[in-house]
């Protein structure tokens, strides 16, 4: 089954003075950010600045306490759920099922958007997992191999908005290249990508725009 065609929104992410709390701590304290379709935005900033929180908020996982947030045309204040099946999130953790094989995992996540067997294989190819690894249980993979698997699952989800939290961490040289190629291709195909990373050279080269997150707020960075 094909994904239902979505209305074309040029403004993919629009956050205005967003406050979001974790427990009682304001991880986001008045963050404002706009991202247009096709951009690859790099979020940089010190540890604890709020990058992960920002990504989770855009994915509809973190409720908006104050301010307004619109992602892919959905108002997150009114309804956090409807945006979800259109974004793809790679967090610090991989969200894989350790008992299942690499293929099982990619197939499952792909199936949630009705991806075909061909698309699944393509996703595995992309992250260089169409090897002996394809049928290995995730529990028996090395850290980087798991990260690759998680990325393959993300690719299989064909999201309109890709949110990635330190995607390069743990990947070897080849994996990093695969990743950059994949993200550029996605952006070229009309998807939008937001990457949080501390590897400024690498991610900076990938990004079309860099913004800085500090103290729960977003700062533009002059080129």
């Amino acid at each position, binding site marked *: 089954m094909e994904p239902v065609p979505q209305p074309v929104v040029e403004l993919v992410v629009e956050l205005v003075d967003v406050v979001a709390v974790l427990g009682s701590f304001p991880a986001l304290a008045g963050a404002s950010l706009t991202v247009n379709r096709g951009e690859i935005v790099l979020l940089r900033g010190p540890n604890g600045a709020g990058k992960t929180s920002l990504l989770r908020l855009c994915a509809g996982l973190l409720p908006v306490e104050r301010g307004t947030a619109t992602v892919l045309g959905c108002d997150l204040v009114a309804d956090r759920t409807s945006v979800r099946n259109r974004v793809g999130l790679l967090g610090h953790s991989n969200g894989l099922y350790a008992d299942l094989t690499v293929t099982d995992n990619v197939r499952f996540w792909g199936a949630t958007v009705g991806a075909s067997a061909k698309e699944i294989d393509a996703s595995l190819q992309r992250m260089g997992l169409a090897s002996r690894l394809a049928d290995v249980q995730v529990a028996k993979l090395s850290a980087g191999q798991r990260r690759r698997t998680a990325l393959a699952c993300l690719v299989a989800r064909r999201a309109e908005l890709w949110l990635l939290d330190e995607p390069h961490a743990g990947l070897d040289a080849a994996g990093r290249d695969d990743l950059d190629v994949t993200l550029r291709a996605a952006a070229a195909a009309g998807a939008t990508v937001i990457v949080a990373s501390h590897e400024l050279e690498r991610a900076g080269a990938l990004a079309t725009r860099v913004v800085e997150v500090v103290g*729960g707020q977003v700062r533009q960075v002059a080129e």
Partner: protein
Amino acid sequence: MTGFMTSTRNQAEAMPATDRAPTSTTFSRALGIAALVGIGWLIVFGLFLSPNDRVQKTGVRILYIHVPSAWLAYLAFGVTGLSSLAYLWKRTRSLTWDRIAGASAEVGVLFMGITLVSGSLWGRISWGTYWTWDARLTTTAFLFVTYIGYLAVRGLGGTHQQRAKRSAVLAILAVVEVPLVHFSVTWWRPLHQNETVENGKLSGLMLFTLFVGLIAFTLLYVWLVLHRQRVLTLLDQVDDRGLDVAIAERRNEAVTS
């Protein structure tokens, strides 16, 4: 209902952060006094005017606390369920409903506790034991624990909305147990009294006293819930004010770094 329930919220939001918000209004004061009078009235009838029971002797007087508290607990849990529904229904969604639900559940647990205690005391007198594995006693105990669990879940944290949604669902599921307790006596082989009241097994004056107790407890219930939900309102506001401070600090990180 929400009309006067929310009264203090409006006040409190109007007032500056410094001065303290009263949780009482003329209405609730009147109500409180009425409740006191009612309880006095109950004491008079319950302890002095109402007759002894043939079998139960003077022990029967526990009835006037035992039964009303049980029924009020039912009512409280019912209210929790209804206001939870009201919260979940988009058109009436408001945290006020959630706070009413919470307040009512707390008071309900209190009354259910009174039922348990008075009941087991009574049991000591008339069955010679504090506790026995009678269906109603057990189901009552379960109901009690269920709502303790409900309160625990309210304490799980997250935003007010998350708390509200989560607990609302639980409340609606939990209320299903109330009829279970009520009908347990007819469903299981009971030791506990079955529908004494419905079947009019009580002498006129006893019945009357029971209703006095019912009225007194009802007034008490409304009064407690009213105040408790106002306190909860204020607590939520304290959270929000705390948040303002936290946000200010958080923004400073940006400056200092």
